[in-house]
């Protein structure tokens, strides 16, 4: 009887490992087939201009002049962690965090409608080959068996993080996610001329995606890009060279970010010439210990109940750090004053004629 149970458990483990292996092997295909146009959603460079032009049209026709002329001073983009199935179905704690952040930084536009683990912003539960399976897993996630199956969601998104960090697939994958972020930014009235700072906040695996998309947001929008990594698992992605500054929050009880330190040779101190180490040497990274916070679950960065010794809840502390970072960005000379008119902004904004002559980190 015990033999049977052991054999069954081993067989189940074997099948699970085989499935994980197949998932890993196939994980780059979503981005690759999208790029090649095999999935029916081939990237079209005019999509972005259409989205951007909606803003021009709306300003000209629909919105009242006073409203149309006001733009957010800064744009915050939130990318969820690898437990997410879509941008719409983020956890209650994340929602509390975003609401509190909105209160703390009212001058900023907060964007949270991009699912960072899909090149087309297609949720796992959306229209895709195995969408039905992810929907079932998501439905049963709260149960014991569903909880175990949810491991496949983590694995699927973790492999997507690996795709983003892989120099062979990363540029394709990250340009797709950046494209979706750009569309969202334009929907939030991001200036077509660029220049307004974009702050990408990535939690856990979202931290790598944030670094991965940075070059494409910088080059594609002409935007200064900042990153706030919330327990982010950061790899040695050379995209960091396009980041103005990176704040890395790592709780005292959070060991997950160490994965990036160990697995990616470009993060090792001996790799002095790596983009990552050059970035650090330039003083562009600030590591912040927000207190004894976990990576995820009870006591994590967004926990609205757990308190620090000073009585502040975890989420309040996280929000206060981010709001401070946002304020420090707002004092920089290129930032748009939220009360400034578009005309004034245009006048003040320096053109970027050398955009097309950017040295490429990709080549």
């Amino acid at each position, binding site marked *: 009887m015990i033999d049977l149970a052991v054999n069954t458990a081993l067989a189940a483990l074997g099948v699970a490992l085989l499935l994980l292996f197949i998932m890993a092997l196939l994980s780059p295909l979503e981005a690759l087939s999208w790029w090649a146009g095999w999935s029916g959603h081939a990237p079209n*460079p*005019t999509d972005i*201009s259409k989205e951007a032009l909606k803003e021009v049209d709306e300003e000209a026709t629909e919105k009242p002049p006073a409203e149309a002329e006001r733009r957010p001073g800064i744009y915050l983009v939130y990318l969820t962690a690898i437990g997410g199935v879509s941008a719409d179905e983020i956890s209650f704690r994340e929602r509390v965090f975003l609401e509190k952040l909105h209160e703390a930084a009212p001058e900023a536009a907060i964007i949270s409608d991009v699912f960072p683990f899909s090149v087309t912003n297609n949720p796992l539960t959306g229209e895709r080959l195995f969408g039905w399976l992810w929907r079932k897993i998501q439905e049963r996630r709260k149960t014991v068996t569903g909880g175990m199956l949810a491991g496949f969601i983590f694995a699927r998104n973790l492999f997507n993080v690996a795709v983003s960090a*892989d120099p062979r*697939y990363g*540029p394709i994958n990250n340009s797709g996610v950046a494209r979706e972020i750009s569309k969202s930014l334009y929907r939030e009235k991001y200036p077509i001329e660029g220049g307004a700072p974009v702050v990408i906040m990535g939690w856990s695996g979202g931290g790598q995606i944030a670094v991965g998309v940075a070059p494409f947001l910088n080059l594609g929008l002409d935007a200064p890009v900042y990153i706030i990594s919330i327990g982010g698992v950061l790899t040695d992605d050379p995209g960091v060279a396009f980041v103005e500054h990176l704040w890395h929050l790592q709780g005292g009880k959070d060991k997950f970010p160490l994965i990036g330190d160990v697995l990616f040779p470009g993060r090792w101190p001996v790799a002095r010439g790596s983009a990552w180490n050059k970035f650090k040497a330039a003083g562009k990274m600030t590591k912040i210990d927000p207190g004894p916070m976990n990576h995820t679950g009870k006591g994590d960065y967004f926990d609205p109940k757990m308190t620090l010794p000073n009585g502040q809840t975890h989420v309040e502390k996280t929000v206060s750090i981010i709001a401070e970072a946002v304020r420090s960005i707002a004092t920089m000379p290129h930032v748009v004053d939220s009360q400034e008119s578009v005309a004034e902004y245009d006048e003040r904004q320096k053109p970027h004629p050398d*955009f097309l002559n950017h040295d490429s980190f990709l080549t």
Partner: protein
Amino acid sequence: MVLSHDQWMALIILIFSTFSLIIGNSVVLFANRVSRGQFIRSIFAFTFLFILSIFLWTLSIQFFAAAFFGKHKPLADVLILVATSFTPFIFGFLILTPHLGYYLYALLRIWVTVNLVLNVMVAYQFDLIQAIIVSLLGWLLLELISSLSFLRLNDVKRWFLKLTTGKAEYKDPNDLVLEYVKMQRKLTLEAAKSAKGVEGGQE
């Protein structure tokens, strides 16, 4: 020429290994936006080109072994030892695995090189240095020949790929993505400029 059972087996192993290796390196095809048909044709075309280069390598090993050390072996026997050296590339498709595939590829190349040197050592009864010289000189020769511009081998390769796959050139994926982002930015700025111009004209 009738192939023996061993020779057939070696050839089949070589074809499968090469095919798997090319699949593992197929990201360049996706990046160049080939159609499904072009993808399949490209895989076969690259497999053919790779096997051709291995045949040339085989010839060079036979030549250098004879020229430098006076050891003669029939071409078919040398082909078997070279083909079986490439067996680790059977796992070539695993190169597709994100992050780990990168290191796996390096590992497979080292494994194949070590295999080849050892096979040459045993088959020709060479010492290690002799085996390294004979094995790697062929590779160096191939590199040298392919870099001689007057031979216009790149033109031949382009002609062959155009003939078989419909694409004469495969660009680096990173360059393609960058071109795309630049194009996207350019179109957005132009569209915005023209839209504002139209509005200005209407006013």
